[in-house]
């Protein structure tokens, strides 16, 4: 167990070093969520009466800002595993696989690095939201929100690592990731309250861990809970999701990297 922690940290350290030295990506990756929050946030400002009907008293942009924070977390973490493919192609993976560290620690190290990077990106989005005037009733909530984002991203990065370990090419990876990422975001109350979704969509959304993360982050930011889903339920769902993904990612990764690439 001790050695699993140490090895996970080794891989985590390497991933963060690489991230730090390739800074150019940081700002580019912020452009898309910034556009979401500014453009969509203002485009749909006319829907304010709708969201007020389910108990929000602020503007639409305040309603959807938590959704965009989660969007940033979704995409940063689901894209994050792509370097697994590079590692397999350019030999780092074989170097790690022929050293005494366990296969799981490679997956877990990558996942923890991705989730931290994802949280950093999301915190920048919080900054943008504050800058364009989204009111934040309680700034002390930022820390627990970050904790939720880290936890959620840890689970989501598992999806990325699983797809990257299974895919043999970049094309397959991006194909599958794009197929998964957008629907998971859309099938959640990120942009629209759960109560106003058609029944069948709302039902599907309830099986989506993104839903619970959005609801939880929004409740922490605005103080309003929706759809009768309590914060405790949300935390429970996220926790189970993360545990399942950690287990699944370790298992699939170990199985896949033992096959010839």
């Amino acid at each position, binding site marked *: 167990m001790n050695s699993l922690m140490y*090895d996970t940290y080794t891989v985590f350290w390497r991933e963060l070093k690489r991230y730090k030295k390739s800074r150019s990506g940081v700002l580019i990756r912020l452009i898309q969520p910034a556009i979401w929050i500014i453009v969509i946030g203002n485009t749909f400002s006319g829907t304010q009466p709708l969201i007020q009907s389910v108990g929000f008293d602020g503007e639409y942009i305040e309603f959807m800002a938590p959704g965009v924070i989660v969007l940033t977390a979704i995409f940063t973490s689901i894209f994050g595993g792509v370097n697994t493919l590079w590692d397999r192609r350019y030999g780092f993976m074989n170097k790690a696989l022929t050293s005494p560290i366990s296969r799981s620690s490679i997956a877990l190290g990558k996942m923890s690095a991705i989730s931290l990077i994802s949280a950093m990106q999301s915190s920048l989005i919080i900054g943008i939201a504050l800058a364009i005037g989204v009111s934040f009733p309680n700034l002390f909530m930022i820390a627990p929100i970050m904790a939720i984002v880290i936890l959620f991203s840890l689970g989501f990065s598992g999806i990325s690592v699983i797809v990257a370990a299974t895919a043999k090419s970049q094309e397959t990876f991006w194909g599958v990731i794009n197929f998964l990422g957008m629907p998971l975001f859309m099938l959640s109350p990120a942009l629209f309250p759960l109560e106003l979704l058609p029944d069948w969509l709302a039902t599907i959304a309830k099986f989506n861990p993104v839903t619970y993360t959005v609801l939880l982050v929004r409740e922490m930011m605005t103080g309003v809970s929706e759809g009768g889903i309590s914060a405790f339920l949300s935390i429970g769902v996220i926790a189970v999701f993360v545990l399942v993904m950690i287990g699944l990612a370790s298992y699939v990764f170990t199985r896949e990297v033992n096959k010839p690439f």
Partner: protein
Amino acid sequence: MYSVETRSLSKTFGAVKAVNDISFAVESGEIFGFLGPNGAGKSTTIMILTTLLKPTSGQALVSGFDVVTHAKQVRQSIGYVQQESTVDEYLSGRENLLLQARLNHIPKDQINKRIDEILELIELTDKQNDSVVTYSGGMRKRLDIAGGLLHHPKVLFLDEPTVGLDIQTRRKIWEYIKKIHKEFEMTIFLTTHYMEEADQLCDRIGIIDHGQIQIIDTPENMKNAMGNEVISLKFESKNPDDFLTHLHKIEYIKKINKDNDKLTIFTSNGTQVIPEIFKISSLLEIKIISISLTQPTLDDVFISYTGREMRDDDVGFNRKREHAKMKRLRA
């Protein structure tokens, strides 16, 4: 106990027998060269020995541990330097070694000392804090090799350590390999395409082709077995078979390889054989276009066992690989 030992080792991919029932043993402390054309089974064998692939049948032991049942112990006893550079470009030289040290569980209190030592040995102390992006090909290779050595493995696997390097750099890398072998006295298992490299570095050489070991011996014995001289000859004739039959009758000739209008003749007394050849050719009215007498090289040995020249193959292979790489980069 042998450092590396295989017993009837086989690996099949679908219908292809990449490694076909090979058995060999490498002594502790030896530099063992593993040669073969591309597709001969070299890489598959090295991947089995480094625990990256599981054999289909047979057994492989590294440092006394079975690569399948005791993979972890094997991993603890080996260093593996891959053909392509695997250092992280964004990290500095020192950070790369630090990563390697942690991957190989070097005790925390020894890490810095080991890194300093190894940097000294490969003469990269001055550049240790520079990002690897700024390193030349030779420097990267040295860093790669250093990474494989850091934890003082019992067996060091070097997969084509000088491929793609210019000749000066290649010689420099050979010096480092000799130096580290002297310093750490570990077993080195080396694959290469370059006969000169094998000749320079290896105590013994195994030639593999079509998934099977063709011969294992010292470079010296191999060359001697070929006779101590080689006559290369180009000729024109309508009836080459007749020519060959006559040549075979010459006493000192040990072996003749024919490649279209070219002959490679292995002999022990070349200066006396050449006049004989001319006698036969004038008798049979064969026109000799060129003739030369040289010492046998391992290249000649290699061709005589595999029937093909490595470099010819190599070009096509590298071009294909380059092509694949470009395709990936574009994707």
